[in-house]
């Protein structure tokens, strides 16, 4: 018979453990406010003027992957580049209006092939070098150089050469007119880079981008997957920004981001889950912003393979068979229905559009007409970020006799399957415009030779319209062409459009002046914190 542990021994151990927990908790609780001195304890009056200073903690929905504007392809890197570097022209807030930035004026020749930009004098890069037309020439020659492997190459491939007229004027000479040239120049990767500094770094910006840009904030340090630090550019040509320092903190998990904003560890958080947004509505210290982009999430039909090949009626039938209302429920009102490839938030949108409504009876009628009176079996390829939409579509289609088998892949595999177009029938996809121009939605996604025409749809009249709209510069004329093209793609229904792309931001009430651009890039130039 073993002698058990005495009660005394046991109680001593337990007391020590509990004591330890209590002491640890007390330390934690007491020390916590010191961690985040900016977390306010009292009511704050609305400021009557800007407040200088302070550090902003911001977190985006994905980590910064790259510091080189020419190579970066992800939204987070765009955000970092946008605040440390400048483009020739920019978009006004979240609109498609183009306004001067480094270039205070520009002229476009009558034939649309020559763009001359006039630069402000005395703009300095962060290492003190002056920004001149030579830097503009260098930047775009580097973008177009094959060794750079620039992601925006296709948007600028129409450039023949760049001429330096004098130190403060640069002329872009194009091979043919390109209506989206200005918009492309306002995009995040089109920032002007410091020739001297890039050459010093031997073209390798992978770990250090200091001095490459002229933007409102200077690059300080980047710890991959952890944080990126920027500080105010005292000599910014448009005036010193209000904030002293910005720290982009990487938090990959949505729930954690939401918690971090609520505890005050982070001032601005992107992509907060919608149910937590509802919770936050009661919190007086937080503000939420809904961010919408141009484009749409859609359920695509592979138009190069049966059953959807050459069968417009079938596609229209399924377009009527999706319960769009049910799809929208998950967004709790934060995202709206998209009737077509983009919504009324961009010009060229036909005002008289009707779209496909959820009408199971009409759907069944069209199914019969299309040759499938008893319904049919189809597959649907989807991935994590669109599987929810996919499941809801599949559920409503089941009710009209279309049995959908969902194939859940990872994102890269989905891209590969859609691109190949051999096995896909239905698939879930989305496109948000890189450049807020109808060309970037209609041409880019639906032109028959476009690499991301994953619906593999071809319509000659549509192609003709979007090709023509690319080379003329008069917006009114282009708008007419796009409206016509839009209607064609709606009639032929190569996809069932669901909702616009977007997510919600949560920010502390003490952040003012926060704006987001059309590429999801956050604009911190005008932000102040009080």
């Amino acid at each position, binding site marked *: 018979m*073993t*002698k*058990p*542990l*005495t009660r005394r*021994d*046991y109680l001593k*151990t337990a007391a020590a453990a509990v004591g330890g927990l209590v002491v*640890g908790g007390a*330390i*934690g*609780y007491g*020390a*916590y406010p010191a*961690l985040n001195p900016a977390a306010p304890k009292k009511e704050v009056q609305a400021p009557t003027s800007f407040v200088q200073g302070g550090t902003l903690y911001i977190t985006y929905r994905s*980590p910064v*992957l*790259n510091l*080189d504007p020419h*190579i970066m*392809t*992800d939204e987070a890197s765009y955000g970092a580049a946008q605040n440390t570097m400048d483009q020739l022209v920019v978009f006004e807030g979240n609109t498609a209006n183009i306004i001067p930035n480094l270039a205070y004026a520009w002229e476009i020749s009558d034939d649309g092939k020559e763009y001359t930009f006039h630069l402000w004098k005395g703009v300095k890069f962060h290492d003190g070098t002056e920004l001149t037309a030579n830097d503009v020439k260098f930047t775009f020659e580097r973008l177009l150089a094959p*060794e750079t*492997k620039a*992601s*925006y*190459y*296709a948007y600028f*491939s129409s450039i023949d050469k760049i001429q330096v007229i004098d130190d403060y004027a640069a002329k872009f000479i194009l091979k043919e007119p390109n209506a989206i040239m200005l918009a492309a120049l306002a995009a995040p990767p089109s920032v002007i880079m410091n020739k001297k500094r890039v050459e010093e770094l031997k073209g390798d910006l*992978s*770990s250090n981008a200091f001095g490459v840009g002229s933007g409102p904030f200077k690059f300080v340090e980047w*710890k*991959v*997957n*952890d944080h990126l630090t920027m500080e105010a550019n005292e000599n910014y040509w448009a005036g010193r920004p209000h904030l002293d320092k910005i720290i982009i*903190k*990487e*938090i*990959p*998990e949505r*729930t*954690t981001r939401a*918690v*971090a904003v609520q*505890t005050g*560890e982070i001032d601005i958080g992107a992509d907060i889950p919608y149910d937590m947004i509802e919770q936050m509505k009661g919190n007086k210290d937080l503000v939420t912003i809904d961010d919408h982009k141009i484009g749409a999430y859609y359920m695509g039909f592979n138009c190069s393979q049966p059953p959807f090949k050459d069968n417009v009626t079938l596609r229209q039938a399924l377009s009527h068979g999706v319960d769009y209302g049910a799809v929208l429920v998950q967004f709790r009102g934060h995202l709206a229905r998209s009737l077509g490839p983009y919504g009324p938030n961009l010009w060229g949108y036909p005002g008289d559009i009707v779209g496909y409504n959820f009408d199971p009876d009409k759907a069944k009628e069209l199914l019969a007409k299309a040759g499938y009176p008893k319904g049919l079996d189809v597959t649907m390829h989807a991935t994590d970020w669109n599987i929810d939409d996919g499941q809801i579509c599949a559920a409503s289609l089941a009710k009209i006799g279309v049995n959908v088998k969902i194939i859940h*892949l*990872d*994102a*890269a*595999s989905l*891209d*590969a399957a859609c*691109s190949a177009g051999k096995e896909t029938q239905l698939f879930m996809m989305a*496109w948000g415009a*890189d450049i807020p121009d109808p060309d970037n939605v209609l*041409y880019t996604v639906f032109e028959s030779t*476009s*690499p*991301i025409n994953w619906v593999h749809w071809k319509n000659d009249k549509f192609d003709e319209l979007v090709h023509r709209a690319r080379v003329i510069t008069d917006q009114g004329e282009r708008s007419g062409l796009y409206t016509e093209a839009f209607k064609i793609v709606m009639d032929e229904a190569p996809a069932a459009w669901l909702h616009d792309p977007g997510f919600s931001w949560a920010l502390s009430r003490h952040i003012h002046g926060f704006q987001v651009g059309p590429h999801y890039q956050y604009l911190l130039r005008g932000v102040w914190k009080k």
Partner: protein
Amino acid sequence: MLRYIAKRVLAVIPVLLGISIITFLLMHFIPGDPVRVMLGKQAITEEVIERVRHELRLDQPLYLQYFSWLYYALQGNLGRSFQMNMPVLYLVADHFAVTLRLALFGLLVSMLIAMPLGIVSAVKKDSAIDYVSRVISTLGISLPPFFTGIVLILIFALYLRWFPSMGVSTELFSIDGLRTMVLPSFALGFSSATMVARMVRATMVEVLEQDYIRTARSKGLKERVIIYRHALKNAMIPVTTVIGMTLGYLLGGSVIIETIFAWPGLGMLMVNAVMKRDYPLIQGIVLFFALMFTLTNLVIDLIYGFLDPRIRYR
């Protein structure tokens, strides 16, 4: 002894070679094109895609690509990440420190929970305490670390504000640094703790029923001495195996905890690398994990020698 260690270290080489070949083949056979992922969905022309593919030598036959990688790897050059264009070795080393810290603290928490729980359970077998601790064990195994992590954040970071919800501090030995360690270590340690606890309990129970324990008692030794000096040391041998496996699991399984708590570790790096088909980075991280595993096993085997004098290595 030294000969034994040398033999074991040399044996690591074919293992790593084999793993690198398997990883290489697996990567190339899953669908998904790293070039397209790298260049983004932007309207890239086929011409640009082919050009980049050629530059990255991805259009060469597989065996050439592998041997080219091996040639550079043997010189210490693991290539550059496709998506970040940074040297793989640098990225792995940079992220490893964080993962190691998390795994070690997770192991510490694991031991702190498992050992007392297991010992008390064994000593007071079938008592109320035993049942309670077995319930806790079951909870620990059933609750996934993801769930535990999020719940801990909601309770201790959001409602109680005792600990930060995320992030890792650069200074480990400061109040700040230690506070960032608490929740993630606990989330990670809790589920593995229970495995170890059950193992400790099982082996202790077995050992406590041995004859030499009865002898020790009849000699009049104090119970505490019996438990710690005699029983525990013998029970530790199988438990050491489990600890070794646990460390391996913690090193690899920390990816979820790293993601939730925003710790820039190897797990997070690996997941992103696989999703983006970043071949050089995947290859580098897997190689590194393999190395860690094999070295950990070697250390565990050596610890046996210390624990059990009957085991001698030649």
